[in-house]
């Protein structure tokens, strides 16, 4: 395969350089879209991912780039080769890294949307019968997620109207913002302004109209909201570690999303989590000793919840999403964005540094963690053949769905809902007193034990009472196990009443 260029070199070192260029090119070509699964055929820019400059030979004599030529001299997009690159058309845009000088705005955008659409279709994230709830924080990632879901819905709507038989219904979309002002208060002026902005954003995405929910975190308590507010404040007051506080907030956010989705008949929760955030999460989980459960959190689909959670932006970098917001002038709401703190803050700045040093680092981290074995709930649960229309099934491309070999984990952490490695694993802390507290300990992961649960065993029971009921009952029934068994015998069951769930 190297026959051509080899003839031009006499010195073996040069030959070896030539090989480097080729192999790097191949690698870079893949990285340009940060996903091994990307099919958009994008080209790479050899200036972006170069780790060892000292070995780089003069580029021009390698045969590979012959088709592309020296593309950036003329400032044209390397994909369509017609329009000017973003760097030329939007000189003020400083974000976006290498993509600025490579793509025109249109190609950049369609590339990004392509990644989103590919993630959605190949993982069967959204089917036409679905009712999708987009978790919207106001930040750029979830803003793009919302936009893309909206565009997909619009297309489906058009197709629906155009089709004769109207067999495929259009999936529904709702938007939820989780209001965490009880945990981290914001001024009422800022709050009202931000909520209004969000309402406007959602209203602008019509038709089809989307319902917008503002869900206070305390809604996870089933009682009236003032009581919930107090309990929530007390709960957070009982957590001393700042990282633990932040993580608890994330767990409660998921509970709130689940609750609003369940109560309003949504069938999927869409999160805007992007590569950069996942890269941070990979290191965070590693540093917190959650290596076992890490694989559960970073897949396209996380169906350990009652309403499956999907991450269609898993292959998009935050800088790409920021750029998309700028190019499309998508409004974001910054009032609620808080810098991360403690361990999470340290990791965020570390990953940022790594990414600046090498623009493919975040993707590499996610790819490494992606090689860990996922859990059986990391795919959309199959619906029985008798139910769900065949037309939908036919249209789904499920290449990523391998039958799961692994059995469901036996137990989950009471607090973070992560699978536990050993049920009732022996914790390093020994408690001499009451059974209740040791039971709580046994049903939490070591990370939550350390950073969220109170150290003093006498406080443990009170802490347990402060937790929302949805959390504490989750752990009690080994629900997934049960549900899985039930699904297998579903067709033989006569009524729903006798399952005891």
């Amino acid at each position: 395969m190297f026959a051509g260029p080899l003839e031009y070199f006499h010195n073996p070192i040069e030959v070896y350089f030539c090989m480097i260029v080729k192999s790097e090119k191949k690698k870079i070509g893949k990285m340009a879209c940060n996903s091994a699964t990307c099919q958009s055929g994008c080209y790479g820019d050899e200036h972006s991912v170069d780790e060892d400059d000292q070995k780089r030979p003069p580029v021009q004599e390698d045969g590979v780039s012959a088709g592309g030529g020296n593309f950036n001299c003329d400032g044209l997009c390397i994909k369509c080769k017609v329009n000017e690159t973003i760097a030329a058309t939007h000189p003020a845009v400083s974000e976006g890294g290498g993509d600025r000088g490579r793509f025109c705005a249109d190609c950049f955008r369609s590339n990004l949307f392509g990644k989103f659409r590919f993630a959605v279709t190949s993982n069967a994230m959204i089917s036409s019968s679905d009712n999708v709830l987009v978790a919207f924080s106001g930040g750029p990632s979830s803003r793009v997620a919302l936009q893309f879901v909206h565009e997909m819905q619009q297309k489906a709507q058009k197709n629906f109207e155009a089709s004769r038989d109207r067999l495929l219904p259009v999936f529904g979309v709702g938007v939820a913002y989780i209001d965490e002002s009880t945990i981290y208060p914001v001024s009422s002026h800022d709050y009202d302004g931000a909520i209004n902005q969000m309402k406007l954003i959602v209203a602008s995405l019509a038709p089809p109209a989307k319902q917008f929910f503002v869900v206070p975190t305390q809604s996870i308590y089933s009682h009236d909201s003032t009581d919930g507010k107090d309990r929530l404040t007390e709960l957070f007051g009982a957590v001393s570690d700042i990282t633990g506080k932040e993580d608890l907030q994330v767990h409660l956010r998921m509970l709130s999303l689940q609750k609003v989705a369940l109560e309003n008949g949504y069938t999927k929760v869409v999160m805007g989590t992007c590569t950069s955030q996942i890269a941070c999460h990979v290191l965070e989980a590693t540093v917190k000793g959650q290596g076992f459960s890490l694989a559960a959190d970073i897949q396209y689909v996380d169906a350990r919840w009652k309403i499956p959670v999907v991450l269609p932006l898993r292959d998009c970098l935050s800088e790409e999403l920021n750029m998309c917001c700028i190019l499309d002038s998508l409004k974001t709401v910054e009032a609620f964005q808080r810098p991360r703190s403690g361990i999470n803050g340290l990791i965020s700045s570390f990953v940022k540094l790594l990414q600046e040093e090498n623009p493919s680092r975040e993707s590499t981290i996610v790819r490494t963690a992606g090689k860990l074995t996922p859990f059986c709930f990391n795919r959309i649960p199959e619906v029985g053949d008798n139910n769900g229309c065949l037309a939908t099934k036919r249209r789904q491309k499920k290449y990523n769905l391998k039958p799961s070999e692994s059995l469901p984990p036996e137990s989950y952490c009471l607090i973070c809902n992560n699978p536990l490695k050993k049920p009732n694993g022996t914790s390093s802390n020994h408690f001499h007193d009451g059974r209740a507290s040791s039971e709580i300990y046994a049903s939490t992961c070591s990370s939550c034990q350390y950073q969220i649960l109170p150290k003093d065993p006498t406080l443990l029971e009170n802490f347990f009472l402060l937790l929302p009921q949805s959390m504490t009952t989750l752990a009690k029934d080994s629900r997934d196990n049960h549900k899985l068994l039930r699904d297998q015998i579903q067709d033989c069951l006569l009524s729903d009443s006798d399952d005891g769930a």
Partner: protein
Amino acid sequence: MASEVVDATAAKPRGGRFCTVCNDRRPALKRPKTLEQICKECFYAVFEDEIHRVIVDNHLFKPGERIAIGASGGKDSTVLAYVLSELNIRHGYGLDLFLLSIDEGITGYRDDSLETVKRNEIQYGLPLKVVSYKELYGWTMDEIVKLIGLKNNCTFCGVFRRQALDRGAALLKVDKLVTGHNADDIAETVLLNILRGDIARLSRCTSITTGEDGPIPRCKPFKYTYEKEIVMYAYFKRLDYFSTECIYSPNAYRGFAREFIKDLERIRPRAILDIIKSGEDFRISTSTKMPEQGNCERCGYISSQKWCKACVLLEGLNRGLPKLGIGRTRGLNNESNKDMKETNGTKGLQSKQCGTLDF
């Protein structure tokens, strides 16, 4: 983390604080791993006891085994030699301990540190074997650096040392080789393997014993021992060790993975142990491709390629093509498709490449 400290100090009346372990003596130090304030005697006791537990729980040694301690003269290996010989006597492991040093031939560095090891030989009464690059490969590091300069020299040194340790261990006819890798080193390796996407190494790097299928297994009794505690132990025990950095690996070359670990440790000391725990718990399917182990056609050393890395590098040196085998080349093994490890790819990230011992 903070609350533990508060608990520990609040338990005792102000002004008269005592060691949280023995409750008897004045605390002399804050234990890096737990932040407990304890006295020197209790520190020695917990430090040694933890290592003893690791050795027992992981069945690292069997009675009657001959064990070589990879000794560079640095803090880790000096403390390891000292603690192992103490524990061997105290708990009756029944081990024959030896010191094994590699002389890379670096004037102004290794010659001095070898003097330290020679003193340790006498102090701890452990027989010492020194194996030199010169006798094994015909080159000293000084000569190699003279030829290739300060770039990539650590690649040579690392590859050669790994093999030299095995050859030295074979000469000593030992059953196992122990190295002084500490918890910080292992946590750092876990992170680096994540950052560079090396899933095969990620699955291996936390095992306490490696190379069990090879001729001489290696193990790391300090797997859970914090670097800071090792320094503290050496300091309080006034152990004789050598602390100069290698003259060919500039000081600034400590990668930011190391720095990051230190930052984490400052916020949350247990993070180091948690990283190791994560590394042990990662769900990596056993079908993950591992390089097939074979033997080098030239020297017989274990190798996944036709020639072992040391032979490739050596061939380059002897033929005056020192770049051979460095970086993304397929070098002499180009018939096989397997990627050779990209030693150079992660320059900015790598640290302790030139550490006193080798993985």
